């Protein structure tokens, strides 16, 4: 992830957005010309339940500064239960990696429906601000500060 710690540094956020809700929310934000930080790169997944904790860890190991997993609100999952399962996985992944020493800001999750363009903008803005505050991800650098 190239340039670190210079004044032009901008956090890189990887979003895993579910196809039915959160991706729709992001799309709506775009089509309604709402402004949100360009720091997020989006991977569309069929369901938040598709997101393996491995994906989250690997993204951070590859140098992303933060990861956002987002799906439908509880009760609204296209597959009925996918986001409930995702919630258990995200909870232990986040808590456990925090225990190992990752900053809480780097692992984020949200429920955003296809009509919540406003919430999408809000979440991406907040998460990006949080990442700016803690600085670049140097967790896996060979020489750590």
């Amino acid at each position: 992830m190239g340039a670190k710690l210079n004044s032009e540094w901008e956090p890189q956020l990887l979003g895993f957005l579910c196809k039915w809700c959160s991706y729709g929310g992001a799309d709506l934000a775009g089509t309604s010309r709402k402004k949100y930080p360009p720091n997020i790169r989006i991977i569309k997944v069929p369901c938040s339940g598709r997101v393996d904790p491995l994906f989250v860890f690997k993204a951070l190991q590859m140098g992303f500064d933060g990861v956002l997993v987002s799906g439908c609100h509880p009760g609204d999952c296209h597959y009925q239960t996918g986001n409930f399962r995702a919630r258990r996985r995200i909870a232990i992944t986040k808590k456990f990696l925090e225990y190992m020493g990752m900053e809480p800001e780097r692992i984020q999750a949200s429920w955003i429906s296809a009509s919540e363009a406003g919430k999408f903008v809000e979440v991406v803005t907040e998460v990006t601000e949080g990442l700016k505050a803690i600085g670049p991800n140097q967790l896996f650098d060979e020489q750590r500060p």
Partner: protein
Amino acid sequence: MNSDHKMQQKLRHEAKALLEQDKVDLIIGFEAGSLKFTTTPLITKSKDDLDRLVINPFIVNNLALFLPDFKGRIAVASKGCDSRSIVSLIQDNKVSRDDLVIIGIPCPGMIELRKVEKLTGKDRDELDDIIREGDKVVITVDGKGSEFPIAEVLSDNCLACEFPTPQDYDILLGEPTATSQESRVKSRESRVKGQGSRVQSHGEGGGLQSEASPDSRLQTLKAMSPQQRWEFWRKEFSRCIRCYACRNICPSCFCKRCFVEESEPRWLMPMPRWQENLMFQAIRNIHLAGRCTDCGGCERSCPVNIPLRCLTKEMYDLVDELFHFKAGMDKDAPPLMTHYEQEEAEDLIR
């Protein structure tokens, strides 16, 4: 005759009866190991081998490990933690309860040789005998026996054990262990108070003190800043040689193909760099959520003494705190990760 010996007699007797009456095809237990104060698993179909079965304070291996590998009816000797691993395997549909005869050992705890060596200042080869007598241990050196409270030499995970008596069994080899856990902790604490600086550092465990109370290593870690914790694990995992002993000894790591060996996509490189080692262990622990019963096998098996229980125990506590779930308590309950409640863990999500 001490209680270990009584249980051993009963075990041999019961195992013989089971084979003779054709109730099982296979017996899984422990026999004496090739080194002093060690044991090794005994897996046999033959009655003639059964006199080699032993019960002593060194039967550390979690025998649940072998169950998915064998077909047929199996009788398996099982301590408290092993029995929970068995129940967990039943929950995951890896073994069937109907095929099992669980011979329960009400467990008085396992003795850690390293602690005995520290206590006596002798190498394990110089010790004549280590015998457990209730909540005392008698260590004989040069023909002279000295008595110590058992809590001084028990394994860390045994000091923290919540359920020493098997959760599920067909035969129990003795009286259920009175939750000696609390008394163990108590006697340990009073000793530590009395002797101040007796507690010494734990192997190469990065300066973490060995147990003053069962969870003190975790508390030390939790009191650190995230940066310090990450640095701690970075250092620890730079020693890891990726031998996978910790995974191979683990009954909950039952995958035929582990993610570390996956090549499409390749999640991690085989070379033991700390970044990859740390990833292996982080993901392994996530896979073990709701399965690990804190048997301590991984930490015991690690050739470079990485304090792996500081990870497994944290996950154990975490699933309890978040989802009120304890591994291997109820064979009819769904596994942690296939289940959910309508309302839980919402505070972690925006």
